Structures are given as structure tokens and as C-alpha cells.
């Protein structure tokens, strides 16, 4: 297998991939022909090597490794001759022995296969083969090209030995593990020393701490929502880089499409340098509340707008209208609950109130265009629903009242009849 692969790829072929991507991931199962590799001569010596640095990789590769499971061996990355029992002859230059690749060599080794569409098609036909090209555009790749060897390469995120599929929950790049993997470096002040933001300020190392306070992290960890964003969903993975101030709205809009569309129509889209981040922050995105809108103390609008200007008035109007519908929905809910507790069937009204709630959500979405008229139109439709529910709820309570009156009258009549019967029975006994 190893000979076949070397013949297919060859050293000259590998040289074409100077800056190549990181992914060692095989997302689909290997062809039936691919069998796990048997332990090679390399592992025979390395697994029991007294130096941990030399034994640990062999042991890790001997356990769970996606490459080994598909028939790859040590020589496919490291070169050498596994059939040679003598250590010197096994690593002779003629064997193509590369030793431990580092920096650009890692990229070259990995992309030798992972950028080869013909080869990858045999193992994972759906998998992309542009990781190397993407990596070259990343901050990591660009820094590496400049000779900075501290930056992440393929093995920094995926591991070198014991590599697992992305879909494997134990993989360091499984969604819930990504933040921890990235922040191995990015939360280490010592490691990040010297790296700066475009404005010249030091690159912060508190992103993970902030992210863990965010609504996205809560969705990922508390609700087990693996589609919730983590580092790579906004920054990219192989092409990892800050989105750039002009692109923030596009990045957020990949999930929050309607909000991004509304925002793009607004005046603010022309003014806000950082788009969504201006109000919602970036890593520490907490659950937004209506308090962010309006002219109150918690409002973000008053950061820029002051009493009297159009923005101030618009913020006040939109907030007031939203509060009006919220109050109406609460009132209607209370009325429906009272009627339900009295035994009335209020399923349709409960459903209608859910629809009114949808209008509230729509208004909160519409608000991102910062156009009070559009917001008011949506909210008025919601108020129409609550008015109808209120009327039906009141009618239900009137019906309850009617039933109770009816029961009281009926019971009164029944009681009279029972008393009359009892008297009649007594009169019969006494023979009157």
C-alpha cells in the first residue's frame, strides 16, 4: 500500500503543494478495499522506545487513527524503510526519510494527499480538497509564509497521530471542542505575545471567556445544538482570519439572514463600521432584550442619539409600540387562562396568541431596518389578534357566568321538586 501510494504521489508531485491545507479529515467511509494497516517495522521499535517523545506517536497511531484505518503507515508521512531492521539503514537518505515534519513541511505532507482530488475521491469523494489553498489565505498561513513557526498548522488542530474524523466527538475539531482547540493558543498570553490587531493594539486572549458567556455557547452546550456557531463558523477554519469590519453583517447573516437583510436596508448599515457587532458585540453575544431598544438607561440607541433627534424619536416609538403589544398579549393570556380554568375550551385562542407572539418576533426583526412605520404595521396586526382573543375570552367568561346562573336556577328548581316530593311522600305515609 505504501509503495503504491509513493508511486502515485511521488516526491515531485508533493513539491507542488507548498502552502496547503490542514484537514486530515475523511468524512465518509473508505472503500471496502481499504484495510487497516498492519503494524510496520517502525512501530516495532518506536512503540517500546524509552524516550516518550518517540514512543507516544507510535502508540497513538497504533490506536484510533483514521489514516491507519484506511491502510496508511508511518512511511507515508515520514518516509524511511520499515522493512530494514537496522536503524541507520532504515532512515538512510535513499529511503526518502523525512523525520518529523514541522512548519511548511507539515502542510506539504498533509496536502500531498488532501489536495489531490483523484486520490481523495477514493477515500472520501465528497470531501473538499482546497484546504491547502484556504490555509494559504489564512492569518496562520500568511504568518507561516513569513517564517513564523509559532502559528497553527494542520496538526495543531487535528493532531498528528491518533487523528479522528470531524464527526467523532473525541476529535479536537468536533464542534463542541473547537473553542478549546483554538484557545490552546489564543487564550495563552505568552503564546500570543507580539501579535496585533489591524489597529496596532495587542491581540486579546479573552475570546473564549467571552464566548462562554454568549448565547451561541449556551445553545451549543446547554441545548446540544451542534449547528450553533463556534470559532470557525465566523472566522473560517482552514482560512481562519477575522471577518473584517465590512464583512461582519455578511458573516452574521449566514445564520441571521432576515436580520442582515433588514439591516442592509437601514441607514445604520452606511454608518456602522462593524455592522452587527456595534450593538451585539462579537464573542460575548448575549441574548438581546427589548431594553436594548428605546431611550431608557439600558438602551443602546442613546449611545449615539439624543433627545430631539429623529433617531431618538424612532427608537422611542418602536419600543413603545413593542411594549404595547407585549402588554396586550400578557392581558389576553391572563384572560384565556381564566376562561380555561373555568372549564372553557380556549385552544383556538391560545393558538391565536401564539400568532400574536409571532408578530412580536417579526416586529423585533423588522426593527433592524430602523423604520418605525414598518414596525408599527406589524405590531398593529398583532394587536388586532389580541383584540379578537380578548373579545372571545370575554364571551367565554360571559358563557361561564350564564352556565353558573343556569345551574343555580336548575338546582333551585330541582331542590323545590325534591322538597315537594318529600312532602308528598310524607303526606302519603300519614295518609293525608
Amino acid at each position, binding site marked *: 500500500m505504501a509503495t503504491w501510494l509513493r508511486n502515485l504521489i511521488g516526491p515531485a508531485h508533493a513539491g507542488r503543494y507548498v502552502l496547503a491545507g490542514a484537514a486530515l479529515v475523511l468524512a465518509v467511509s473508505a472503500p471496502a478495499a481499504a484495510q487497516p494497516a498492519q503494524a510496520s517495522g517502525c512501530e516495532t521499535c518506536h512503540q517500546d522506545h524509552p524516550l516518550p517523545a518517540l514512543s507516544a506517536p507510535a502508540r497513538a497511531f497504533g490506536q484510533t487513527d483514521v489514516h491507519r484505518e484506511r491502510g496508511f503507515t508511518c512511511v507515508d508521512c515520514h518516509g524511511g524503510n520499515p522493512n530494514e531492521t537496522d536503524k541507520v539503514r532504515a532512515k538512510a537518505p535513499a529511503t526518502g526519510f523525512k523525520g518529523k515534519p514541522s512548519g511548511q513541511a507539515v502542510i506539504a505532507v498533509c496536502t500531498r494527499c488532501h489536495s489531490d482530488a483523484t486520490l481523495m475521491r477514493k477515500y472520501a469523494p465528497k470531501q473538499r480538497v482546497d484546504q491547502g489553498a484556504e490555509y494559504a489565505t489564512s492569518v496562520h498561513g500568511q504568518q507561516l509564509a513569513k517564517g513564523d513557526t509559532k502559528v497553527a498548522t494542520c496538526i495543531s488542530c487535528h493532531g498528528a497521530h491518533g487523528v479522528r474524523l470531524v464527526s467523532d466527538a473525541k476529535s479536537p475539531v468536533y464542534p463542541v471542542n473547537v473553542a478549546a482547540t483554538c484557545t490552546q493558543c489564543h487564550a495563552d498570553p505568552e503564546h500570543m505575545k507580539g501579535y496585533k490587531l489591524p489597529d496596532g493594539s495587542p491581540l486579546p486572549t479573552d475570546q473564549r471567556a467571552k464566548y462562554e458567556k454568549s448565547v451561541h455557547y449556551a445553545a451549543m452546550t446547554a441545548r446540544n445544538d451542534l449547528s450553533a456557531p463556534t470559532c470557525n463558523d465566523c472566522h473560517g477554519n482552514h482560512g481562519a482570519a477575522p471577518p473584517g469590519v465590512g464583512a461582519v453583517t455578511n458573516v452574521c447573516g449566514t445564520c441571521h439572514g432576515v436580520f442582515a437583510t433588514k439591516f442592509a436596508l437601514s441607514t445604520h448599515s452606511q454608518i456602522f463600521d462593524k455592522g452587527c457587532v456595534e450593538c451585539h458585540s462579537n464573542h460575548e453575544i448575549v441574548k438581546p432584550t427589548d431594553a436594548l431598544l428605546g431611550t431608557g438607561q439600558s438602551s443602546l440607541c442613546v449611545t449615539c442619539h439624543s433627545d430631539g433627534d429623529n433617531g431618538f424619536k424612532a427608537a422611542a416609538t418602536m419600543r413603545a409600540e413593542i411594549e404595547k403589544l407585549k402588554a396586550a398579549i400578557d392581558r389576553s393570556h391572563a384572560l384565556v387562562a381564566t376562561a380555561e380554568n373555568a*372549564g*372553557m*375550551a380556549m*385552544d*383556538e385562542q391560545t393558538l391565536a396568541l401564539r400568532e400574536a407572539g409571532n408578530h412580536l418576533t417579526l416586529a423585533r426583526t423588522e426593527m433592524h431596518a430602523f423604520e418605525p412605520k414598518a414596525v408599527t404595521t406589524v405590531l398593529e396586526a398583532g394587536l388586532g389578534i389580541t383584540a379578537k382573543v380578548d373579545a372571545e375570552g370575554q364571551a367565554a367568561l360571559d358563557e361561564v357566568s350564564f*352556565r*353558573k346562573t343556569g*345551574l343555580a336556577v*336548575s*338546582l333551585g328548581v*330541582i*331542590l323545590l*321538586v*325534591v322538597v315537594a*316530593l*318529600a312532602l*308528598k*311522600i310524607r303526606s*302519603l*305515609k300519614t295518609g293525608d
Partner: protein
Amino acid sequence: MTQQVFAWLDERLDLSGLRAFVADKTVPKHRHSVWYYMGGITLFLVGVQVATGILLLLYYRPSAGEAYESVQFIVSQVQFGWLIRNLHSWSANLLILMAFVHLFSTFFLRAYRKPRELTWITGVLLLFIMMGFGFSGYLLPWNELAFFATKVGTGIAGAVPLVGDFLVRFLRGGDDVTGATLTRFYGIHVAILPLITTVLLAMHLLFIQRQGMSVPPSVEKREKAGEKIPQEPFFPNYVLHDVMWWYVALAVLAALSLFLPWELGKKADAFASVPAGIRPEWYFLAMFQTLKLIPSHVLGFEGEMLGVLGFSAAAGLLLVMPFLDRHAADGRPSKVITAAGILAVIYLVVFTIYGYLAA
């Protein structure tokens, strides 16, 4: 005018004979007489069930796709539909309660003794039929709780030796509880059981009229000793008593229907997970709880099978009780049977409460 109509009918139907029978008919009067009215109340509740059931039929649609919605429509849209549905549900439960009270009062007063064995047998069969009404009617609103309870209930029939699988398929109209089960239960509830009830009830009432009211053995002993037992005219005295109790039952029904309306719950969904607190109607709860407590295997036999056989045997014994307590007719009722009856009442009450608390 009334006399003219009566005369016209009398000429053709000999109503004078019937009037004379009613006028001459008397009912014994003693300190246990109050128990006589339990049968009358049960009969009244049967009437309520028939009347409200017919009204519900006007709107109810017996299919898995429409049953739940039709009941929802009845309680929310139909004028007084809520009242009819609640009366039907509450009356069904009170009916079975009163049937049990009637059964045990008859049992302890030994009213089943010779010559009233057939009255007892038709009465016990009627109780079983009423429970069948309850079981089949419970599924008809096609809500989640009834759906899963019926699944469990019909599944228990599978424990019957030899014919268990056939019984389950027969009850369900297939391997599982589906729309076919609903249609089948509907047919049983509105056609088959009413037909059997009509025949049995007619026999039961005919036997009572033919043989007159039984008196307890203690009263009979006094009578044999020469004491004259007071009698009261069936009409109007006894009938007025009966009617008075019916009015009381009607008042209770109306109050329950308004203050404790019967919940409809969620629509049945075969793919939904089984909701918590699945349990049958209260009159099956003691049996259900017992089956839950029996170990899965007892002396090499399936526990559930033994339970079902045990209940079947108890039902059989109840049915032939007049023939087991043969000396009751001679004024020497069996003390063992009295003790068994007391134990049965205690068992039913305790296990029903236990079933509620355990759920």
C-alpha cells in the same frame, strides 16, 4: 279528553288490567329499604346515558382523523354541547359506581337467593356490560391518555391462555391500536352493547316485577315468625321515592358537569412517547394495580396470565354466587361468603386508592 284517550287505548290494550296491577302492587318496607333505590338510580343513569349518547351521536365522527376534532367541536361550538358531553362522561362514572353499590347491597342483603338467581345473574352481566361501555367509550374521544390506556388494556387480553393473541387482534382490529380499533370500539359502544343491555335490562326488570322485591333474611325470619312486615304501595309511594332520588342524582350530575368539566387532553399520536401517568378508568384501577404487582413469573407461570385467570375466576364466582350460597334461601347465609364480600370491598377500595397514588 284524557279519559276518552284512556278509554280508546283501554279498549285495544286492556290498560285496566295494567292499572290494577300497578295499583295493587306493594313493596316491603323495612330499615334496609333505602338500598332498593340504588337500582333505581342506576336505571335513571342508564337513561341519561342513552339520551346524551344519542345527542352526541349527532356530531361525533368515529375516525382517527376526525374523532378528536369532533369532540372538540361538540364542547366548544355546539350549543350546550359541553353540557351533554360532560353529563355523558360523569353519568357513565356515576352509573358504574351506583351499579357497584347496587351489586354489593344486593349481595349483603342476600337478595340473590332462591328464587331470584336469574335476577342476580342478569344484574351481574349488566355490570360487566356497563364496564364494557366504559372501556369502549373511553377511547372514543381519541385523546393521548385514552389511546395509550387502551393499548395497555387491550394488551392485557393477550395474557389469556390459548386465545390471548386472537382476543387482542379481535379487540384492536389489527396488531396495534389504530383507527380500526376506534371504529370497532364505536360499533361495540353504540350498537352491540346497547342491544345486549336492552335484552338483559328487560329481563332484569321483568324478573323484579314478576317476583317482587326481596326482603333481607333477617326480615324474612321475622315474617316467618308471624310478624307482619309493613308494605307500601308501589305507586305512588315507591315511585315518588325513586323519582326524588333521580332528581338528587340529576342535581349532582349537573353540578359535577359544570364545576369539574371532563378534560379532552391532547389528540392521540401513535408516534408520540407514552405520557406519564397512564392509567385506566377508576373502575379498572384495582385490577390494573394488582396486575402491576404480580411478579412476571409465579411458579413457572406468567404472572399476568395468572392475574387475568384470577379475575376471570372471580367474575365467574360472582356470577354463580346464588348457587354457592345455597343455604341463604333457608335463612342461613354463608358467613364465609359474607367475609369474602367484605374482603372484596376492602380490596377494591384500597387498590383503587393505591392505584391513584402510585400513578
